[in-house]
C-alpha cells in the first residue's frame, strides 16, 4: 500500500505531510485568532455598517477639533462606520457623563477629562485592559502616571488619551533685563517675581488663589514639590497634615506677599493667560495655550516667552512634581457598538503623532516611546522643548494615591484654594490648616 493519500495540484502529499500541513494550518489559524483584527490597523468586518457616537470636549486648540473630526470621519469611511463626534465645553462634561449613565443611553465613547471619576464610573465601563496592553507594548510602556488616570484595582477601564502639561511660562526678555537666571526652582521663580514686582512699571506674577481648576492644580504642583502627600498610595489614609504642608504654605504665602498681584484672589482659569498676554506678568504657571494664543496677536511678546522645564517645579531639594490635566476615553457597558468603539479607541490612542501634531504639541502622550527626542512638534520648537522631559514626572491630583472619590470631592469643593485664601488674607497658618484638614477629614470620612 502506498502512502500516497491525496493528489493535489500535481503534487503528492504523504500522511506525514498532511498532518504537518494540517498542524501548521491550525497553528496559523490559532495565531491569527490571538490577534484582534484591528491590531494590525484593520477594524473587524462585524462593525461595518454600524454607527459610533463620540463625546469629547471643545479643545482649547480649536484646530484640533477640526482635525479630530476629520480623523474620526476618515476612520469611519475606511471601516464603513458612521461616526458622529459631539464637542461640549469642558465644564459640561461631568454633568453630561452622569446624565448619560442615568439614562442608560448616549455616546459609545466618552472622554473623561481632568476630574476623572473612574473610581466611581468603573462598574459601568467596559474593561479595556487588552487594548491598553497592546498599545503599551507597541509604545514602550505607559508613563508612571497613566494607571492613576485609568485603572481601578489593576483593571483598565479607560484608555489614556493625552494630558495637558501645566508648565511655567516665563519672560526671557525681562529675566535678561533684570539679570535673572533661567528659573530652575520655585525659589528662583519667587525671586524673579519679587524683582519684577519692585520694578516700575511693575512686572509681578500670579497663581490663582480662587475657585477654579488652575488654582487647584497649580497649588498642588507647589505642594507636591515640597513633599506634600494627599494620601497613602492606596488612597485611603489622608496624609495632607504634615510639616511639608506647613513649609509649602509658608512659601506660598511669601510668594503671594512678595511677588503676586492681589488680583489672583479673583482670577479664573484664563485670567493668567490674559495677564501674560497683557505684557505685565513676568511668569505664570499654565498650559501652553496661554502663550500659543499670543502668537498671532503679539508676535514680539510671543518670541519672548519660554516654557520652563519640569525641574522648575520643585524647590530644588525635594522632587519634580508637575501636576497635569489628564484625559482618557471610556466605553459604556450599555453601548450597543462596543466593537467599533474599541476599534476606534485602539487606532486613535495609538496614533500619538496625529495627536501631538494636530494639537501643536498641546496633547502630551502617555506612551514612553513618544518621549524619545526629538518628539514631534516639541522637539523642533525650542520654546517648548522642555516638555519632552515631562513623561516621567507628571502627576495628577490625589498623589501619591489614586484619584479616588474622596480626592475628587476635595478637589471639587476647592478646599486647597480656600485654605490658601484664608492664609494669604491674614489667617494664621495653623488655623488655616486646621480648617482645611477639618474639611478633608470630613470628606474622607464620608467614603469610609
Amino acid at each position: 500500500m502506498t502512502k500516497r493519500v491525496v493528489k493535489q495540484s500535481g503534487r503528492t502529499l504523504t500522511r506525514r505531510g498532511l498532518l504537518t500541513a494540517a498542524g501548521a494550518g491550525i497553528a496559523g489559524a490559532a495565531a491569527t485568532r490571538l490577534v484582534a483584527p484591528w491590531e494590525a490597523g484593520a477594524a473587524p468586518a462585524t462593525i461595518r455598517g454600524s454607527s459610533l457616537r463620540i463625546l469629547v470636549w471643545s479643545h482649547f486648540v480649536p484646530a484640533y477639533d477640526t482635525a479630530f473630526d476629520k480623523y474620526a470621519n476618515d476612520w469611519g469611511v475606511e471601516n464603513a462606520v458612521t461616526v458622529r463626534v459631539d464637542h461640549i465645553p469642558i465644564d459640561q462634561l461631568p454633568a453630561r457623563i452622569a446624565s448619560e449613565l442615568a439614562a442608560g443611553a448616549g455616546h459609545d465613547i466618552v472622554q473623561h477629562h481632568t476630574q476623572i471619576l473612574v473610581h466611581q464610573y468603573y462598574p459601568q465601563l467596559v474593561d479595556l485592559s487588552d487594548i491598553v496592553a497592546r498599545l503599551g507594548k507597541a509604545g514602550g510602556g505607559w508613563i508612571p502616571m497613566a494607571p492613576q488616570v485609568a485603572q481601578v484595582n489593576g483593571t483598565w477601564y479607560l484608555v489614556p488619551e493625552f494630558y495637558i502639561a501645566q508648565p511655567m511660562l516665563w519672560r526671557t526678555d525681562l529675566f535678561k533685563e533684570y539679570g535673572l537666571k533661567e528659573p530652575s526652582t520655585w525659589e528662583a521663580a519667587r525671586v524673579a517675581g519679587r524683582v519684577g514686582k519692585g520694578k516700575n512699571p511693575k512686572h509681578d506674577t500670579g497663581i490663582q488663589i480662587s475657585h477654579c481648576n488652575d488654582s487647584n492644580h497649580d497649588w498642588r504642583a507647589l505642594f507636591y514639590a515640597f513633599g506634600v502627600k494627599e494620601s497613602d498610595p492606596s488612597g485611603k489614609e489622608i496624609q495632607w497634615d504634615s510639616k511639608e504642608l506647613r513649609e509649602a504654605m509658608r512659601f506660598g504665602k511669601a510668594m503671594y506677599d512678595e511677588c503676586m498681584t492681589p488680583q489672583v484672589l479673583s482670577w479664573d482659569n484664563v485670567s493668567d493667560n490674559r495677564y501674560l498676554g497683557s505684557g505685565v506678568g513676568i511668569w505664570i504657571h499654565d498650559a501652553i495655550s496661554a502663550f500659543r494664543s499670543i502668537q498671532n496677536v503679539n508676535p514680539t511678546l510671543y518670541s519672548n516667552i519660554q516654557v520652563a522645564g519640569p525641574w522648575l517645579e520643585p524647590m530644588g531639594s525635594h522632587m519634580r512634581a508637575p501636576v497635569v490635566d489628564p484625559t482618557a476615553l471610556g466605553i459604556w457597558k450599555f453601548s450597543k457598538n462596543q466593537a467599533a468603539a474599541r476599534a476606534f479607541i485602539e487606532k486613535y490612542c495609538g496614533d500619538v503623532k496625529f495627536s501631538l501634531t494636530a494639537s501643536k504639541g498641546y496633547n502630551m502622550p502617555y506612551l514612553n516611546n513618544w518621549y524619545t527626542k526629538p518628539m514631534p512638534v516639541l522637539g523642533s520648537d525650542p520654546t517648548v522643548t522642555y516638555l519632552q522631559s515631562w513623561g516621567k514626572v507628571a502627576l495628577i491630583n490625589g498623589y501619591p494615591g489614586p484619584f479616588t472619590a474622596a480626592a475628587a470631592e476635595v478637589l471639587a469643593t476647592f478646599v486647597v484654594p480656600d485654605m490658601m485664601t484664608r492664609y494669604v488674607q491674614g489667617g494664621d497658618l495653623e488655623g488655616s490648616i486646621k480648617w482645611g484638614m477639618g474639611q478633608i477629614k470630613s470628606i474622607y470620612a464620608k467614603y469610609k
Partner: protein
Amino acid sequence: MPDAEAIISRPVAVRHRAFTAERLRFGYSLLAPAVVYMLVLVGVPFFFSLYLALSDASVGGTSASYVGFANFVAVLQDETIRQALRNTIVFTVVAGICKGILGTLLAFLLIQEVRGKKLIRSLVVIPWTLPVAISALAWKWMYDPQFSAINYVGTRLHLIQGWPNWLGDNFLAAVAVISVNVWRGFPFAAIVLMAGMSAVPTELLDAGKVDGANFFLRYRYIVIPVIAPILLVGLLFDTVFTLSDISVVYLLTLGGPMGATEILPTKALEIGIQAGALGRGAAIALLLFPILLPVVYFLLRSLRRRETL
C-alpha cells in the same frame, strides 16, 4: 322619554349621587392633563431627587441603598454648606428688596406718558431678556481684576478709590453677585408692577387726590391693595428664581472667594455632579424645599384671602 322617566322615578338621593359622580368624572377628566403634566414635569423630578437624597447614590452606580436622613445630617454638619445656606437666604432677601424698590421706581417711570414710551419699555427689559450666560460674562469683564471697566471709569470720575478687586474680596464679591441678579431681575419686577398699576382705576387715584392723599399715601392705600395679587405672584416667582439661580454665581465666582458667594445650587453641583456624590448633592438641593414651602404657602394663602375679599 323612558330614560328620563326612569331617572326621574329614582329616589332624589340616588339621582344626586349619579349626577355628582358624573360631574366629578367630567371635572377630573378635564383636570387630568394638567395633573399628568405636573406629575411628569414636577412630581417625578421632585420624588426622584427625594429618592436620591435618601440614598447613597453616586454618579457611577445604577442602584443605591437607602440611608435614611444620613445625607441631610452630613450636609448640615458641613460648615461650608451652612455658609451656602446662609448666603442663599441673604442673597434672596437682599436681592428681592432691591428688585422691589428699583422695580417700583422703574414701573412709575414706565407708566408716564412720554414720547417713545414703547421704545423705552423695550429697552429697559433687555437685561431680563438677555441670555444669562452673555450678561453674566459681560459683567465678569466689568468686574475683571485687571481690566475692570467699572474701576476704570470710577477712578477717573473719582467715584472709586484704588482698584477694588470686585470678585476677590468677600464682601465685594457678594455685592457684585447680588448686583448682577438685581440688574437682571428688576425689569421683570417693573413690568409686573406696571401691568398691575395700569389696572388701578384712575377714579380711585383721583378720589385720593381730592381727599388730600399725597403720592405715598395713594401708593400705600390705593395702588398696593389693588395690585397686591399681581405683586404677590411676582414676589413668588422672583423668590423661586433667585433661590434656585445658579448661573450668575457659577459664571462669576464659582462660589469663591472662600465660599463668600457659595449658594446651595452651586454647592449641589460641586458635590453631586463634579464630585459624583449624587445623594448628598440632592440633599443639598432639597435644603431649599423647607425654605420655599412656607414662603409659597403664605404667599398663596395671602393671595387667596385677597381674592375672596
